[in-house]
């Protein structure tokens, strides 16, 4: 009887409560870890959204512009003084404003983009000269910030007079917020109200295209060779150490390499997506190779043995059976690598992609910048309104990342399997 009292089942049951407690705690810890990282993510997104959502709108003013033939006398249409037309239109709204200082303050309320807009209109249709036309032009960034409530009247950025003029415009319904088209169609600009992300988007697109086109085949090729074919010798050891090490090299060092190799030796143009893409290729390659090898390694040896057993060659085994099974994992790695490349800015500093570029690039050789660098540049700009644009550009960038991750999820969901 004595002996039966210490049956194994009793020991087990005695500890069971404690073990279940530990189990619950462990589980809760895991959930807490996920919750913590998601909270960080939320915090990040909320602070960016809070700063950036208002960039969807841009304050515009209605102007009745008289295309005074006097202005176009004796000059080419392309170089006429369009600013004068804008000033004239403003003065007709506020006839009692006089004095040079006051007039300057008045015309400062409209963006310098208004003159460009008029120029474009006249260049398209010369018949406008001598006629009256009503149009909405972007307001200056300070007015925009004030109108959106991001700049208090006490800030000192706008004078008393200007504030009263804005009130006057509001009463006459001559000022309103409308969809900010320029943000999606324009390139960089020094005027926040005229700046857009299209140039940076195109630059990012071209750069990533090069990176993907080179790094994916190269990365998969390297991973397959090292994991499946390479003999285990010093040379492959060296390659393996190299790849692992390259994954740890600071991105800025790749920038230095790009400067020395691509720009100075191969003569790739500075600031071009081609140079940026090549540098980012070298940078993402190790990530793809490491992920690719992990994915290949996760394919059980039994698959290989079975294929070899029915008479497939090693190449056939790998390409027909192992690679397709490992491909989802490789794609996940590639997407992570591309996401990293999309957000990278430090190495591009060295190859001249941190530059003021207004024109939208149309090829691999046009000077261009990329989205994160655009964010960095805007963050560095003194104009207050750029804070909003910076956050908005970040939102766009994050949207792209979400799409890329969505793609990864879809891929993984479709192909994931457990051995």
């Amino acid at each position, binding site marked *: 009887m004595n002996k039966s009292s210490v049956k194994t089942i009793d020991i087990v049951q005695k500890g069971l409560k404690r073990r279940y407690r530990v189990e619950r705690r462990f*589980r809760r810890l895991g959930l807490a870890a996920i919750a913590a*990282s998601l909270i960080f993510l939320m915090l990040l997104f909320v602070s960016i959204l809070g700063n950036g959502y208002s960039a969807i709108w841009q304050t515009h003013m209605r102007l009745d512009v008289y295309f005074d033939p006097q202005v176009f006398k004796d000059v080419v249409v392309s170089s006429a003084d369009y600013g004068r037309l804008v000033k004239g239109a403003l003065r007709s709204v506020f006839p009692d404003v006089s004095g040079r200082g006051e007039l300057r303050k008045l015309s400062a309320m409209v963006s310098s983009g208004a003159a460009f807009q008029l120029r474009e209109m006249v260049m398209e249709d010369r018949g406008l000269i001598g006629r009256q036309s009503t149009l909405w032009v972007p307001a200056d960034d300070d007015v925009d910030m004030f109108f959106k409530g991001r700049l208090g009247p006490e800030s000192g950025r706008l004078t008393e007079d200007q504030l009263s003029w804005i009130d006057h415009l509001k009463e006459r319904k001559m000022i309103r917020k409308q969809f900010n088209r320029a943000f999606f169609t324009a390139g960089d600009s020094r005027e926040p109200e005229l700046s857009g992300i299209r140039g940076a988007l195109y630059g990012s697109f071209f750069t990533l295209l090069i990176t993907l086109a080179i790094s994916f085949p190269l990365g998969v090729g390297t991973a397959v060779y090292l994991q499946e074919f390479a003999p285990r010798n010093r040379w492959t050891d060296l390659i393996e150490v*190299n790849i692992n090490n390259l994954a740890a090299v*600071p991105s800025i060092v790749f920038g230095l390499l790009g400067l020395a190799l691509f720009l100075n030796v191969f003569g790739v143009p500075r600031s071009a997506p081609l140079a940026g893409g090549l540098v980012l290729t070298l940078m993402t390659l190790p990530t793809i190779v490491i992920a690719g090898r992990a994915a290949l390694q996760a394919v059980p040896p039994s698959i290989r043995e079975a294929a070899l057993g029915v008479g497939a060659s090693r190449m056939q085994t790998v390409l027909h059976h192992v690679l397709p099974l490992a491909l989802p994992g490789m794609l996940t790695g590639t997407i992570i690598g591309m996401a990293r490349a999309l957000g990278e800015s430090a190495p591009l500093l060295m190859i001249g992609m941190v530059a003021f570029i207004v024109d939208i690039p149309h090829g691999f050789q046009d000077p261009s910048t990329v989205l994160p660098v655009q964010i*960095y540049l805007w963050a560095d700009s003194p104009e207050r309104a750029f804070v909003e644009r910076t956050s908005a550009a970040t939102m766009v960038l994050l949207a792209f990342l979400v799409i*890329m991750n969505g793609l990864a999820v879809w891929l993984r969901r479709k192909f994931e399997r457990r051995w």
Partner: protein
Amino acid sequence: MITPGIIMIALLLMATTGYYLGVRRSVAAAGGRRLIRNLHSRPTYYGLLTALWCGLPAVTVFSLWQFFDTQVVAHLVISQLPAEIENLEPSHISLLLNDIRNVIARQGSLERIDPALQAAAEHYLHLQRISNTALFVTIMALSMSALVVVRSRINKGLRARNHVEGIVKGLLAVCSTIAVFTTIGIVISVLYESLRFFQAVPVTEFLFGLKWSPQMAIRSDQVGSSGAFGAVPVFAGTLLISGIAMCVSVPIGLMAAIYLSEYAGKTFRAIAKPLMEILAGVPTVVYGFFAALVVAPVIRSLGVTLGLDVASESALAAGLVMGIMIIPFVSSLSDDMINAVPQSLRDGAYSLGATRSETVKHVLLPAALPGIVGGVLLAVSRAIGETMIVVMAAGLTANLTLNPFKTVTTVTVQIVTLLVGDQEFDSPKTLAAFALGLLLFVVTLVLNVIALYVVRRYREQYE
């Protein structure tokens, strides 16, 4: 007009034709569709072999041609121009060529074009046309003859599969050498400047010096402080910030990975995992601003309420944010590794009556450990190499301290500040950046060799 693009398309067509001709030829050699089994390899391989031979040599010629063609054409154009131009310095000739190309593109200011330039431009175009035509002919001839030769060799006994596999394997091996060339490139570009740095500053002082203050004269006519190039505080700062980052990311990342792979339902996993991976994709610039503008002030004011002296650029802020950034690296890789542990091990543990957490702690983690260590090391190197966050949130002052509330600086920050900005390229100050880069490179190399050893030593092959 024949452009390189057209040549490429023609080549592609050529290769496709080669493929089908090869297939047909092999079928014919076997004596018809039904007798394919008589062939050494399947017909596809004969097609591929033909296509590869059609394509690869031609592509090589094409690339080489494109590489030299510009110089040759430019040289010929210049030699046609008046003698005084020919004797110009090379740099001026490049400007002249630019002018000529602009004329061709009709983008130069048209009123300033002089007839000689116009003629040169036409000559240039003419030569380019000739060059492209010649290239087209050469490449077509090359791939055509390859096609004919390979096709004539196709017979029942040709070991086409072995040939093709050999070529593919060769290409794969070439791919894998890129990494070595990249490393060699980095070492050469960094080592050269570092050696010059060590001529000015002794290696021992750099490696063991306890003071980092590169505020020495950067121009001959400027006097700064006495420069001190001891890298220890810089590396200590890097390690402090990385350490904080790892303290945040390893527990959170590992626990998240365990939960995702062992506890979470399918839907939860499908939502949570990609959401977490977004953290890795958020640009570092954004993290930098987040650290400097949200996290640092919060930590500072918290420190003030607790009566601690917290610098506005504390290591804690940068480390925390960096840790957040690295979580998905750790979790994603650990998750993959845990998933890779065969189900049979789990089943074995469960059947012995282990709870899930016990299975994880005693079976899965030890089994996946080498992979996890690899992932963590990858994360460490990412932390050490991270630039933007520390540039924005950590300071520039090199303090030798372990106090996370103080300002420290990191290697990458120093590299950036030393290289970007007012510089004279030969002063030890600028060269110091390269020396730091070299040291960083060496440190990560050592780290990885150790990691590789650990992984190899403890790796177990399942099933």
